[in-house]
């Protein structure tokens, strides 16, 4: 990978109790690019994704060894401000999960808990975030309506806007389109393409065509190992590893 990297892992291992879920994963995530993680269910994609903003800390039996650097800093180091880390490394989940509040409040929530109280400043953040998430035109006249009244695709874009509102550097997306119809999926994919101008996106997806369409780099994982990682074009046209070839041509998985 030639681009500057924003996140890197070195010999990363993770155990859920006795299960060795990530095995010696070493990879680099290039800045301002979209990196897709693909692989069969249970291969460790989401686990790896959740390492990047320490979401696995919330699980008691987890043990992690090896290094994860974000902007050159070891995020596993004691004393790391996890709240600040999660502000810089935001996450969008599989199922849209807006708060049961207004559209405006959903977006303003993050900046407010990070100390921004000025109403005009918050309004500006709300508009900018919704514009960045390609949702502004659809909701600008009903910002105070409940977010739960939006369609699934709109809710997912609202969740992306909510992530953008705290000005992250990296956006992690865990199967962001799996609960959406093809039109809403296409909108999210277009959005991902726009987002990479300003953010680094890491996306876990089971949809290989989606990985091929939206990402610049792709990592293929299998049984907790990162089998192959490289430019998306190369991975989908002529992967170097036979396992990758077999997986993306549907011969197993």
């Amino acid at each position, binding site marked *: 990978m030639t681009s500057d990297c924003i996140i890197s892992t070195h010999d990363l291992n993770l155990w859920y109790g006795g299960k060795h879920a990530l095995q010696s994963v070493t990879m680099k995530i290039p800045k301002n690019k979209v990196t897709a993680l693909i692989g069969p269910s249970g291969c460790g994609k989401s686990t790896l994704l959740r390492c990047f903003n320490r979401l696995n800390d919330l699980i008691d039996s987890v043990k992690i060894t090896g290094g994860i650097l974000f902007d050159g800093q070891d995020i596993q180091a004691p004393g790391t401000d996890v709240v600040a880390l999660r502000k810089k490394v935001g996450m969008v989940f599989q199922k849209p999960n807006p708060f049961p509040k207004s559209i405006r409040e959903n977006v303003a929530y993050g900046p407010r808990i990070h100390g921004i109280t000025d109403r005009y400043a918050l309004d500006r953040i709300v508009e900018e975030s919704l514009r960045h998430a390609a949702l502004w035109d659809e909701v600008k006249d009903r910002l105070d309506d409940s977010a739960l009244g939006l369609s699934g695709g709109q809710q997912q874009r609202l969740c992306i806007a909510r992530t953008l509102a705290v000005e992250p550097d990296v956006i992690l997306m865990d199967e962001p389109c799996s609960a959406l119809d093809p039109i809403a999926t296409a909108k999210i994919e277009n959005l991902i393409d726009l987002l990479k101008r300003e953010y680094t996106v890491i996306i876990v997806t089971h949809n290989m065509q989606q990985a091929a369409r939206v990402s610049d780099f792709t990592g293929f994982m299998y049984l907790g190992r990162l089998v192959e990682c490289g430019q998306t074009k190369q991975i*989908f*046209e002529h992967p170097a590893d036979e396992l990758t070839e077999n997986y*993306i*041509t549907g011969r197993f998985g």
Partner: protein
Amino acid sequence: MAEKFHAELDTLKKDTVKMARFGRSMLRDAVDAMVRQDTQLAESVVARKEKIHELEVELEERCYQLIALYQPMAKDMREIACTLKVITASLRIGRYGKVIAKIVNEISDAGNGPAIRSIPRTSPMMSIPHMADLAIDMIDDAIEAYDTSTLRLIEDFSSRDDTIDALRHSIFREGITHMMENPRSLTRCTHFIMVARYLERCADHACNIAENVHYMETGERIEIH
């Protein structure tokens, strides 16, 4: 679904090999008809043009369906891309066979008056059958390489193509010499020169298939000059 896709892709490839051999047989028979002055065989080649066109449409359609329904990737995608090229090349080879077959009638002794019969045809014809054999050998090897993924068969295509080019040049010069010596040989010799050109193009199509088989197998592009 992956199994269904791979079964369909296998059948598609087998049928493409059949089409390629059909195109090759049109060229072989056209050259044989020319050498033996067999106008009946030539007519049977011309009659096959509809069939090869139908095969082209049907097989291309099946490629497009596989792409649309399964969005193939990696080697699967390369196999379909290569198959599309093999279909086109086979159609072209078959069509050159048809064009040569049409020439057979025009230059046959039977269908022409004493003027054309008196023109020597042995000399330029000496190289044309040999050139045709070499070109058809290349086509055979290219089809076999596609069918069995045997890259060894296409390793020496560059030098074989050089030989074809040299033969075309030699036939051209030979034809010119005849035409200068005997202006009445103009029609026949011009046709011979054209046939040499068609055979050269057929060998180029074999090279084209070879390049695509190499891409299909390795993912790397090569150019055979």
